[in-house]
C-alpha cells in the first residue's frame, strides 16, 4: 500500500542556523572563519577544523578526521546532511538536519569523502557543539618511553572522553604530545590538575598554554588510518621521511606533512607501500591528494556500475 505518491522534486536544504539543535547549513566552500562567525553568535562551535583559509570541502576531501575527532568522532559523525550536485547538474538531498536517523541507506557517509567521483557537495549541514568559553593547549615532552606511557594514561581513563584532542606530534627526530581541552573557565583548574597528575605519573614535562586558539595543522599530504595501538609507532616512522606527522591517538589516524619537492607522488607512494598489506589486514586505509584512488576490484566494479548508473542518470 502506497500512502504517499512519489515526490516530484527534491526537498533540498536551505541554508539555516538552528541554535536550539546546534545545526548550521552553509555552502561547502565556507571557510573556518565563515563557520566560526556564524556559530559563535550562538555560543556554538564546529571543532573539526584543520585550516583557517581552506574551504570546508577541501578539508573534508583531504582527510576523514581532525584532532578533535578524539572527542567528537570523524567528519561523517559531524556532518548530518548535504545538498549534492550530481554529474548531471541536478542537486539531490543527502542525509538530514537531525542527528539521529536510520531512514534509508547511508549515502551521506558513502559520498562524504568520495572526492569528485560522484559529483560534489553544494551545502553541508554541520553539527555544532557548545562553545564553553575556555580552550587550552597542553604539551608533554619527554623520552619516547615516557611519551608512550603518557598517551596510554591520557586515553585509558574516563578522562579520555573529555580531551578535545590527544595528538602525538613528530617533527624531525623530536616528538611531543599535544592535548587540547575545552571547558567552562570554572573547570579549567580541574583539567589542569589532571594534566599535572598525568605528567607526574609518566615523568613527562608539561607546559600549559591557557586561552590558546585551537591548533590548525593545515591539510595533510597523506592520511593513514590504522588502529590506536599502532598509530604512534607508524607516525614516528613516517615522520623520518616527512616534515611532520601528527598521530590522532584515539582515532588511529596519522596526518603526514611532506617537505616540498617535485616528486611528491613517488615519495608518498614510497611511504605507503611498506604498510599496505598490514593496513588491508586491519581494515585500515590511506588517502593522499598526491596518489590516485585505489582501483576497484572486479567485485567492487560490479557494485559501482549499478550505483554509477543511478548517479549519472538524467
Amino acid at each position, binding site marked *: 500500500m502506497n500512502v504517499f505518491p512519489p515526490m516530484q522534486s527534491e526537498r533540498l536544504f536551505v541554508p539555516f542556523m*538552528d541554535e536550539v539543535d546546534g545545526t548550521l547549513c552553509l555552502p561547502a566552500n565556507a571557510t573556518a572563519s565563515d563557520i566560526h562567525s556564524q556559530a559563535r553568535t550562538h555560543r556554538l562551535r564546529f571543532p573539526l577544523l584543520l585550516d583557517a583559509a581552506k574551504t570546508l570541502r577541501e578539508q573534508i576531501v583531504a582527510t576523514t578526521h581532525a584532532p578533535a575527532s578524539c572527542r567528537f568522532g570523524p567528519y561523517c559523525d559531524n556532518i548530518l546532511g548535504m545538498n549534492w550536485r550530481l554529474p548531471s547538474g541536478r542537486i539531490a538531498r543527502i542525509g538530514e538536519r537531525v542527528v*539521529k536517523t536510520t531512514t534509508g541507506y547511508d549515502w551521506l*557517509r558513502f559520498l562524504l569523502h568520495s572526492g569528485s567521483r560522484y559529483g560534489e557537495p553544494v551545502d553541508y549541514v554541520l553539527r555544532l557543539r557548545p562553545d564553553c568559553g575556555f580552550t587550552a593547549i597542553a604539551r608533554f615532552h619527554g623520552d619516547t618511553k615516557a611519551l608512550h606511557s603518557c598517551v596510554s594514561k591520557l*586515553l585509558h581513563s574516563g578522562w579520555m572522553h573529555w580531551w578535545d584532542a590527544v595528538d602525538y606530534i613528530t617533527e624531525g627526530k623530536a616528538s611531543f604530545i599535544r592535548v587540547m581541552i575545552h571547558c567552562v573557565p570554572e573547570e579549567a583548574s580541574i583539567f589542569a590538575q589532571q594534566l599535572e597528575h598525568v605528567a607526574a605519573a609518566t615523568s613527562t614535562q608539561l607546559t600549559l598554554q591557557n586561552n590558546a586558539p585551537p591548533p590548525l595543522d593545515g591539510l595533510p599530504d597523506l592520511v593513514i588510518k590504522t*588502529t590506536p595501538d599502532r598509530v604512534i609507532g607508524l607516525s614516528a616512522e613516517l615522520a623520518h621521511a616527512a616534515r611532520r606527522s601528527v598521530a590522532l591517538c584515539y582515532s588511529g589516524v596519522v596526518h603526514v606533512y611532506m617537505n616540498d619537492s617535485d616528486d611528491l607522488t613517488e615519495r608518498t607512494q614510497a611511504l605507503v607501500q611498506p604498510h599496505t598489506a598490514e593496513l588491508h589486514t586491519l581494515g585500515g586505509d590511506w588517502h593522499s591528494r598526491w596518489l590516485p584512488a585505489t582501483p576497484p576490484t572486479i567485485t567492487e566494479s560490479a557494485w559501482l556500475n*549499478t550505483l554509477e548508473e543511478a548517479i549519472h542518470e538524467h
Partner: protein
Amino acid sequence: MLTSAAQLAGYGADGLGYKNHLPDAVVIPADAEELAGFMRGAKALGVPVVMRGAGTSLSGGPVAVQGGVVVHTSALKKIREINTEGFWCEVECGVGLNDLDAALKPHGVFYPPDPSSGPVCTLGGNVASNAGGAHCFRYGVTSNYVLGVEAIMLDGSVHRFGGPAGGRGPWREDWKRFMIGSEGTLAAFTRFWLRLLPLPEKVWTFRATYPDMKTTEAAIHALVAHSSYPAAIEMLDPRGVAMVESSQMACGLPEGSFMLLVEIDGPEALVNARVQSVAELLRHAGSNDVMFSDEDALRQKLWKARKASGGLLGQLSPSYVVQDAVIPKRALAEVLQLVYDEADAANIRAVNIFHAGDGNLHPNFLFDSRVPGELEKVELISKRLMQRVIEVGGTLSGEHGIGNDKSAYMPLVFGPDSMRLQLSVPAAFNPAHQMNPLKVFDNRHFIA
C-alpha cells in the same frame, strides 16, 4: 532447520507484535561457513531469505512478509577478541548486547549504544537497524561505533568491509556505510569489529518534573546546550506518568507532570563539579521537584518510571504501535500536541516516552488489533504525524529502522534523484530483492 507450525510460531512477528507473517522454515546455522552454504542454496532455490537476531525490533524488520526462510543467527555468539589497547572488539552477530557489556566491563571499557532491549537483543540486529538507546545524546548510535562488518552475499561470497582500524580495507569505497542500518536487505552479517570507550568513572542521575510542556521544552533546550554534555535526556509525558502512577511501579510522580530524566557522566572530579549547575538549570527552567543521586540504588529508583513504562505498555493494551520520528527540538511541543489532538480525536490512547535530547519521539499508540477499524485509525494518525514530522525538518526513524512498518512513508522523504540513489543500493547487492523483500522500500518485491 525448523518447519513445524509450533516451531515457526515464534518467528511470525518482531517486537511490533500485531503483524504476523509465518516463514516457511527457520534455519539456525552453526557457523559462518554453514551460513554461506545456505545462502548459495537459497539463491539456487529462489526462496526469500530473512535474517533475524533476537527479533526485538519495532519496525516489522526480521519478518518473512513474503514467506521463505528466516535465518536465526543465535549460534554465532562468540566474542572473538577484546583489544583494550586498540579500543576495539571483534564479535559474532548473535552476541547479546548486555553479554558484550558484561564481558567488556572487567577490561574498563564499554560499547555505548544501549537500546532498551539490551538484555535480549543481538549485535546483528543492532547493526542491521542502526540501534540507538537512552545514552545516544552524547555517545551516538551504532553507526558511530562499527569499525568493520563481515558480510555474506547471496552467492555465498564472504566479504570484509573495514576491520579493527575502521577504514575501507582493500576496497576503493567504504562499503560498510551501506551495510550498517540496511535491515537485512543487502547481505547476511556474521562478524563485526566495534569501537570501544573507557568506562566513565562517575555517573549522576537527575529526575525533574514540570507542570507543562513549555517549561519542559525550556529545560530540554537548556540541557542540550549545557557544558556538562549530558549522556541522556529522557522524557515521560503526563499520560506516561499517569500510566506508571496507576501501576504497581508507582514512584510518587506528581499527577499531570512531565518528567525529565537526565544523566551526566565522566571523571569524578569533573562530574562532581557539574552537579549543582545541572540541578540549578533544571530548577531555573521551572521545576520545583528536582532529585539527583550518584548512588546506584537511588539512581535505579530515579530510572524506575522510565524503565517501567515500556513494560507497562504491553500490559495495558493488546497491541501498540511505537513511532520513532526525529524532529528538530524547537518543534517538540508542537508535534507532541499534534499527537495528543489526533489520538484524542480518534479515541486512541497515546503515551510519549522518548529521547528528548535527540528530538527522537516515541509516541506509543495503544489499541486492539482485533477490533475492526482500530488499526486503520492508528495508521491514519501515524500518517498525519509523519507528514508533519517531515514538514518541520525531521525524519521517519531515528533508531528502529523502517522495516515494513514505515516503508509507505518513504516517498515523503526522498525526491526523485535521492530515491533513485536509494534504490540503487539494493540493486547493487541484492537486485532480485531476495534478501528481506518488502522492507525499507515497499516496492522491493522478490519475484523468484
